[in-house]
């Protein structure tokens, strides 16, 4: 049962963070950077289309992988084989309506549909979106990412520590959607800007993402520390348990991303911003784009690790 579940979890994490990340990127980075005063209409259209594709494909994959995950978990909760769970339906109904996991999944289904509707409305508006619509999109996207917490180890604890752990997990997921989920939209935006030689757009997007990324990374570090405490509990658990080893791998991958992000923020983005349209700026942009692509790969690896971590008993129990 575990291997299919791990695969489905990995896909679902990636899809959720991609969809939510694209929606958040659009609200905080793309739309402000693509205002008519700063950017030509053709460029704006191309980028909006590409970002919309990312969000929609992400949402469809979120829905499909979410459904698969639900069925696999429902089967593990009951004692019946997969075929009978699928054909019977009573187990699926019981899980969906009476368990915390099922109710969270129902909520996430609503959020998926809601986000799809809001994104469609935003696309129709052709860029002159209202603040209310933008606020709703941000809230629903953040909710779609954060509610993954109910499918992880953050749930089940009792009392105040239980609440803190769940809250930390929720925020960790939202920050991951913002940063890791924002890397693919950033790569696409920079690619389009680079090909169109629109250095000012590349500058604006990179500068905005820098500040955005710092806030998200700060939240990831803080909530990551809380989660590590609750799930590993000691340095011994990190070195002596399988769970601990994988957690160390996750942290190492995160540090790789952080190192690249630091290079981007401290050297490449300022280089891009300082120069007008000359060779140094183009060189900086090329390196920036390459780094972001490497970060996307590292981020995907982290999600694969998290998919495995979620089905293992946490180190603190051993």
């Amino acid at each position, binding site marked *: 049962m575990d291997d299919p579940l791990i695969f489905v979890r990995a896909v679902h994490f990636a899809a959720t963070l991609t969809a939510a990340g694209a929606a958040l990127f659009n609200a905080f980075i793309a739309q402000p950077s693509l205002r008519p005063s700063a950017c030509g209409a053709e460029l704006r259209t191309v980028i909006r289309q590409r970002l919309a594709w990312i969000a929609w494909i992400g949402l469809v994959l979120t829905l499909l992988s979410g459904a698969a995950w639900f069925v696999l*978990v429902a089967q*593990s*909760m*009951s004692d019946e084989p997969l075929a009978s769970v699928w054909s019977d339906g009573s187990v699926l109904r*019981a*899980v969906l309506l*009476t*368990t*915390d*996991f099922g109710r969270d999944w129902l909520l996430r289904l609503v959020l998926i549909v809601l986000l799809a509707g809001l994104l469609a409305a935003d696309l129709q508006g052709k860029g002159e979106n209202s603040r209310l619509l933008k606020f709703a999109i941000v809230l629903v996207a953040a909710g779609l990412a954060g509610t993954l917490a109910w*499918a*992880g*180890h*953050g*749930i*089940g*604890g*009792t*009392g105040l*520590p*239980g609440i*803190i*752990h769940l809250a930390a997990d929720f925020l960790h997921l939202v920050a991951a959607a913002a940063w890791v989920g924002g890397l693919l939209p950033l790569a696409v935006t920079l690619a389009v800007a680079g090909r169109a030689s629109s250095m000012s757009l590349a500058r604006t997007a990179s500068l905005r993402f820098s500040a955005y990324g*710092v806030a998200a990374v*700060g939240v990831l*570090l*803080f909530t990551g*520390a*809380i989660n*590590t*405490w*609750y*799930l590993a*509990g000691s340095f011994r658990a990190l070195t002596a348990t399988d769970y601990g080893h994988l957690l160390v791998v996750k942290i190492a991958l995160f540090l790789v991303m952080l190192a690249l992000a630091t290079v981007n923020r401290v050297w490449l983005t300022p280089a891009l911003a300082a120069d007008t349209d000359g060779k140094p700026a183009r060189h900086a942009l090329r390196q920036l784009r390459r780094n972001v692509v490497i970060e996307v790969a590292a981020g995907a690896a982290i999600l694969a690790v998290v998919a495995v971590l979620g089905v*293992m*008993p*946490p180190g*603190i*129990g051993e």
Partner: protein
Amino acid sequence: MRTQVFVLSLLLLGLGGAGAHAHAMLSNSSPPVGGSVGSAPRQVSLSFTQSLEPSFSSVQVTDSKGARVDVGKAQVSGSTMTIGLKALSPGTYRVNWHVLSVDTHKTQGSFTFHVGGQ
């Protein structure tokens, strides 16, 4: 801001905190695991380390011959599960529990308790 966040993380690491176990383990029971009680209990009450899903958690109590001595359906509230018992005569009884934690993991366990005199 990054320095402040880092320092806060260190501080928080210093705070103690009940670790969340991935599975619901039995933390307490009445009658106690392996224990002896003088008079027959009216119910068995089990406390776990995590909150349970009522629809998928159950418990059976059997006597030394394997006959069921529990009555009614198990009552689940948060991380506690309770089941009523018939009038028990002195002897050894076995509790078999199967629970589903809200984190979707199943656990099970079994223990005995003794009723009466010695």
